[in-house]
């Protein structure tokens, strides 16, 4: 295994710490995230409240942990769904070719030309706020980069000798796709997925910031930012804490994604005609 650069060690550590803390939030959070104490609103950090309290006297640290569950889960779900959908469309397009390829590619071009956030805003406005609407809005607009990448990679792999050989041996198309093509797409698509995860995290934050995310009193990082804005001068941590966490997670996954992407590209360049063991 190649040695991981030092900055990526830090990146992975930060990311793992945040994800672990969020995953364990029911046990780590010192207070119920919606519990109010109006007598101590906008309190400064203290032993009782590590990051202080928000404008309704709720513990900022507890809300940060709880809110992360929504933000991270939604970004992860959106990444998985768009990766699956985009890969399926891309591979189908590359393998079938002809009018179907033309149709899917042009559809992809049209969707790529549309501002992602505007389409998401429109869909959330039509479907209403909430978890499912937000997920659908992100997925409808988010699969296109995966489809584009998967199509180009699948066309490249399809032209290689082992795929030709599989055709000669009368292997069924599903076998060729699942055993010969998809494994070659996995590395670059994983890199793309990590890059897109950071992108989705920021989009979830932006849509929540605009009030289109979770419903009160539930928290998520974007809505915490929005709610804290009027009190930024008096209680800076209420806005700094969610802002920094979004920044840290987005930066970490982006760096990780770039590394994975580079690594997979390099591997592909080194072994251009590699034949899978089972070919």
């Amino acid at each position, binding site marked *: 295994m190649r040695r991981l650069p030092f900055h990526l060690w830090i990146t992975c550590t930060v990311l793992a710490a945040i994800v672990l803390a969020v995953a364990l939030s029911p046990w780590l959070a010192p207070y119920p995230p919606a519990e109010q104490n*109006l007598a101590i609103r906008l309190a400064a950090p203290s032993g009782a409240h590590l990051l202080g309290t928000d404008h309704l006297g709720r513990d900022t640290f507890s809300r940060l942990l709880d809110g992360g569950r929504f933000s991270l889960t939604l970004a992860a779900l959106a990444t998985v769904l768009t990766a699956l959908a985009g890969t399926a469309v891309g591979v189908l397009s590359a393998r079938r070719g002809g009018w179907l390829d033309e149709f899917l590619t042009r559809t992809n071009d049209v969707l790529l030309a549309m501002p992602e956030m505007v389409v998401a805003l429109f869909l959330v406005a039509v479907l*209403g706020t909430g978890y499912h609407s937000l997920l659908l809005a992100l997925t409808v607009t988010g699969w296109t980069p995966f489809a584009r990448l998967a199509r180009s990679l699948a066309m490249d792999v399809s032209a290689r000798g082992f795929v030709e050989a599989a055709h000669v041996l009368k292997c069924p198309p599903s076998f060729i796709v699942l055993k010969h093509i998809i494994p070659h797409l996995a590395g670059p698509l994983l890199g793309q997925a990590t890059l897109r995860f950071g992108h989705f995290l920021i989009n979830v934050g932006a849509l929540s910031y605009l009030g289109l995310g979770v*419903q*009160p009193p539930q928290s998520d990082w974007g809505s915490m930012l929005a709610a804290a804005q009027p009190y930024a001068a008096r209680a800076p941590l209420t806005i700094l804490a969610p802002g920094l966490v979004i920044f840290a997670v987005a930066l970490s996954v982006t760096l990780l994604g770039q590394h994975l992407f580079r690594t997979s590209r390099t591997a592909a360049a080194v072994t251009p005609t590699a034949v899978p063991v089972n070919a």
Partner: protein
Amino acid sequence: MRYSLPASVSAGLAALLALTGCGFTGSGDSSAQSTQDADKQQRIVVDNFRAPVANWALESDAAYILSLSGCLETLTRYDEAEGKIVPSLATEWKQSSPMEWDFTIREGVEFQDGTPLTADAVVGSLQRVLKAAVPARAFNPKVVSSVTALDGRTVRVTTPTESPLVPYRLASVNTGVLSPAAFEGNNVNPFGHCTGPFTPVSEKAKQSLTLDRNANYWGGEVQLAGAEVRFVTDGATRTTQVQTGEADVSLSIPVSGLAALESDSNVKVLKADSPRTATLYMNNGKAPFDKVDFRKAVTSALDLDALAASVYEGAAVPASGPFAPSEPWAGGTQDAPAKDVDAAKKLLADAGYSADRPLEIIAIVERAEFADVAAVIQDNLKAVGVPVTIQTKEYAAVEPDLLAGNYDMVLSQRNRLIDIADPIGFLTADYTCDGTYNLSHFCNEEYDAIIAKASTTADSDERYGLYAQAGRILKDQAVNVWLVNEQAIDAVRTNLQGHTQDPLARYVLRAQTAKPAS
């Protein structure tokens, strides 16, 4: 009824009110802050919170901007201190028959273009508003049949039914009077065509309106050389500009900016009761809200003091009922309902309430603070055993459900005086059995009879007494929970003189507004 006041007495009274600072119900007279002589070469900057959007059409909200800018004037105006209608461009009026009102136009008034104010000019201006494609709520064909000139100085307003409120309607800024030349093109052109103390001279679209002194103003000498009204929609910017001295007056200061301004010795923060009450509407037509005891339990469960102090940060006061205490129809000062968890639990038991389903509060997103208000209410109701969920939605998306009765609770806020300076429209639309905006789906024959009587009662004191009776019924029946009375918050530089706060931001630049040499 006959109301008569000579022009000189009227102008003198207006000046006296300004000098003694009794022109409104808040603490906002800034005239005592500076005793230096006014410099008549001074110009000031006013930051307004909205921009004109309809090419100065008088039936639109643009009329508010022309009015606060000291350009547009109406036949009558509502005096908050007096709690009644006072003369402006009309010196007297009388109800000549049940459906006819005659207004006598003030003599010696000229439009800023030099043409005289006549009955014909007033009729032309009012008919333009009456015939607008989207007429003003205060002055439209449903409430006014026609406007005609009886002679050179008398305007007759005819109504479809008997109405004591015509003088109130003619105090609406939408009934401001412009000279005939203002209506020569396709658009309304107020430049040089008003009667007020300031005349608009230039405009930067959606940015600002510049005005100069009207040297021939009928109401006395104008103390400022001119002013610039800026349209600054961002509250934080308005706050900063008055703090730095870039603006002399900033209207509608956001709560988040209050602390900084209140600690600044160069700025005076003005607060006045506004006719807006944030309200938790309950669907009286749907279980469990169809039981008075349940509605009273909800009222008892809520901590309005904590709500006003936290979400509103002291910029609103706990509400005691459907009216603000300072309104002449409030029926005297009353305490806001106190939180009483034990009483709430007992009332819930009396109502036979079982928490078989969570109730839903809709918080409309147009008012950002309502999400927090809903969270506080949710917490309060949870403490008495009433589970609640919250949905934030756009108002337009939920209005059909609200009117159809398909909801539990909704947070909303209504301006009681949005049409005219009288709550009859609000009390009729919102709470009568056939009310067009009866979100509560409340129906009470006694209440309807009182409102019907009030709508034909000319004497304002008697009518206000009837409103107070109606308000008591709403409160006794716990129709809604009136949460907090919001306040109009403006800020002015302390060296500004003769400024009087108007909670509805209709009158800002006046003849007596002045500033000493810097």
